[in-house]
């Protein structure tokens, strides 16, 4: 539905967006995920038309809306936008806010406002002023306002970051349902990986103005393209890979040999992909338990290997490890990265 071709934008010396390409399908939910300052908000504002790109094209259903010769102003793009601070007009009532983007007969507007208020579950707030309602309510009204003119695409700039944790989870779920119900496509900007993974159909991982990886959340999580992606999405352990003995090995022992093994420099393993076993003999223990932290659904065990490298391991909450105990870690699955930090198409094997 919307296609973006080598989009560039810089502010003075700062390259905010550097040659971004992507395409979003109708009714698809995209999360642009990245650390602060990576250019994700700028990218969103370029799509919105609130910023002018230095170069590149944007197409809406094949029609160019942004390019060197053509720049459709934001008001004519007909996208909805939900701002970080909601940006409700403080001098208008809740229903006037929702009606703001509507045109047509009074009664039609009224009907649409009612419909949206019901959709977001707040019909009783119609006549309230924005400063009289809570943060979560303001958020829903902001969504209702953005949806009112029936946009095909809704843009959201860190829409949940101003809310506290519990409310955030609840609202994310509600708003996802509401947007799906309205059948719009959504572009969500966030620095919160949980939010990105749970909200979106596809994640665009962004770093230093470029899209590092795009894909279904699960794929991005399980097959990060490089070391940065691996550590930004989810928790990751890294081990040095050495080739001193001729074949690749880590401090946990030799790796299952394969074609690409010789290029491997780093090994990445997720905490939940490590199993801890009791060594058959005490001197066989490859690591020692250092810290144990109970955090509800999992127990996080930190182990230290003989060479001092540490690994974080998620075990079941019922497990019973104690600091000082010797253990043998077993990797159920791992990924290998080459000297430039790029993922090697490696077998997912077991080691140690």
């Amino acid at each position: 539905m919307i296609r973006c071709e080598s989009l560039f934008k810089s502010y003075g010396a700062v390259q905010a967006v550097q040659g971004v390409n992507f395409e979003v399908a109708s009714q698809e939910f995209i999360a642009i995920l990245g650390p602060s300052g990576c250019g994700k908000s700028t990218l969103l504002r370029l799509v919105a038309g609130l910023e002018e790109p230095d170069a590149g094209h944007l197409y809406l259903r094949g029609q160019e809306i942004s390019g060197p010769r053509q720049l459709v102003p934001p008001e004519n793009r007909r996208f909805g936008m939900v701002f970080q601070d909601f940006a409700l007009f403080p001098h208008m009532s809740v229903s006037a806010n929702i009606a703001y983007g509507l045109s047509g007969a009074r009664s039609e507007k009224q009907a649409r406002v009612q419909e949206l208020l019901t959709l977001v579950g707040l019909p009783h707030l119609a006549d309230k002023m924005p400063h009289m309602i809570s943060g979560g309510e303001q958020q829903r009204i902001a969504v209702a306002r953005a949806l009112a003119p029936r946009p095909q695409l809704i843009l959201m700039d860190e829409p949940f970051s101003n809310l506290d944790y519990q409310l955030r989870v609840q609202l994310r779920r509600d708003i996802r349902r509401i947007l799906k119900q309205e059948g719009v496509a959504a572009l969500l900007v966030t620095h919160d990986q949980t939010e990105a993974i749970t909200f979106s159909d596809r994640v665009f991982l962004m770093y230093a103005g470029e899209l590092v990886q795009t894909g279904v959340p699960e794929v991005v999580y399980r097959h990060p393209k490089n070391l940065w992606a691996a550590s930004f999405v989810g928790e990751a352990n890294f081990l040095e890979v050495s080739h001193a003995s001729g074949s690749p090995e880590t401090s946990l022992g030799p790796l299952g040999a394969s074609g690409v093994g010789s290029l491997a420099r780093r090994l990445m393993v997720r905490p939940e992909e490590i199993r801890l076993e009791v060594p058959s003999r005490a001197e066989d223990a490859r690591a020692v338990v250092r810290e144990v932290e109970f955090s509800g659904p999992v127990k996080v065990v930190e182990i230290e290997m003989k060479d001092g490298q540490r690994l974080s391991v998620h075990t079941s909450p019922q497990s019973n490890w104690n600091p000082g105990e010797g253990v043998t870690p077993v990797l159920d699955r791992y990924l290998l990265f080459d000297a430039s930090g790029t993922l090697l198409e490696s077998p997912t094997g077991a080691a140690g």
Partner: protein
Amino acid sequence: MSHRSFRWSALLALLALLFSLPFLALIGLAVQAEQTVWGHLWQTVMPGYLFNSLHLALLVGLGTLLLGVGSGWLVAMYDFPGRRWFEWALLLPLAYPGYIVAMVYMELLDYAGPVQRTLRGWFGWKTPRDYWFPEVASVGGAGVMLTLVLYPYVYLLARTAFQQQAGVLLEASRMLGRSRRSSFWRVGLPLARPAIIVGVSLVLMETLADFGTVQLFAVQTFTTGIYHTWFGTNNPSGAAQLALSLLACVVLLVALERHSRKLQKSQSRNLVVRPFPRRVPARPKQWLAVLACLAPLSLGFLLPSAMLLMWTWQSFARVHLDAFAEDALHSLLLAAFAAGCAVLLGLFLSYGLRLKTQRSLRWVVRLVSLGYAIPGPVVALGVLLPFSWLDREWLNPQLEAWLGWKATYLLSGTVLVLLFAYLVRFLSLAFGTVEAGLNGITPGMDEASRMLGRNSRQTLREIHLPLLRRSILTASLLVFVDVMKELPATLMLRPFNFGTLATRAFGYAAEERLQQASLWCLTIVAFGLVPLVLTNWKMRSASERATAPPSHRLSPVADPAES
């Protein structure tokens, strides 16, 4: 109640009494006067004063609204050559007291002035009947003069409102399908309305308080009326009644201003301030914007400054430098002394407020903070009345009995009464600034200092004073400059044969010897520039976020009675 807090309360009560004295005296005199005085006023001069004052207020209100909101919107929303410079430079006319701009234009546009002379030369006109030229010395002329020097109030408040709060909301509006223009009318302007109303009410307060401009142009308003009724017809109770009527208007304006400030605060809550991307219009439109900003700036600052510089240069040989030195010394001493006293009292009041929060105390503070809105002639009258009464009824007989002095008027005839009038008018300014600084020192800091082994005096010396240094400096500077510029109270209360920069300049102008006054005027304007330069420096150093007020009127004067 402990001994210490009793002492505080007693001192504050004394202060309250002192500062309410002028108003009590005015009310007393006005009430005690015979009914006929009031009726007489209404039958003779009052309708004229009322009409002229309202007419002037309407003109200046509309003028500043147009110039201020227009230039504020341009600077906030568009990019054009020199925009960053205009952002600050548009404030420059604030350095001019109305009467100095009025003097300059009077000299320029008068029948004998260079403009009309040149026109006559070009077209061969001989007498005033041959052509039409707008009369400068009129209500309209005074309106234009005051608009030129007062629009920066509206400009600054409007610009800040547009830049700071409307930015993200304007984006929201555009995302909902409204064009730039439609967004301005439906979101930008309504949101800035409270700020604009604050600006306009400040402008109207200044307009009602103006004395120099209208006196120079012989426009009969309340302020000149008070002056004439008192000095011309020697009718203090009539003057007092006029003063009270004027005061009533001012109080209305103050109420409007406070209400708008509160509204503004409630609307700007929890909005992230984000710089709004400015639009770069097409070339011709850019130059139109430059022109629109340049016009008020040149008329209100550049042209008058150029003329004053030229006249100073031309008349330098004929200037009485010793007279100038004497007047400058008087002005400096008065301003310095008033600033010192105001800051000390301001510190005292704000500490009193910090230590105690009784209702009675807040009443004192509110009374003091009203001072800034009260026109100079009203203050002068209110101050002179009780002091001259004291002299007449008490001090003079005493002195005569004890020392054999005759009719000295020790209180009312000296600079003492002048200083007191300055304090009544400008204390709020020092108090507001110091209080804002003190509010930055949280109770936690006091407690931390005490927990680390300092007593309250050491805490004051080691924590409070270093932290307050900046606001103390700013406060003294603001009072200093305002005293330098002050005209009507100085004119009415100064001792016989005692001149300041302002009174002498005005005296020259009244005798139509303006060119000789230009050195005096230039000096006053130079001092008036100091707070503006300071603002510029602050704005650059603390990024655009901190729009430090270049004038006290622009910073909300603390109204703790409401907190």
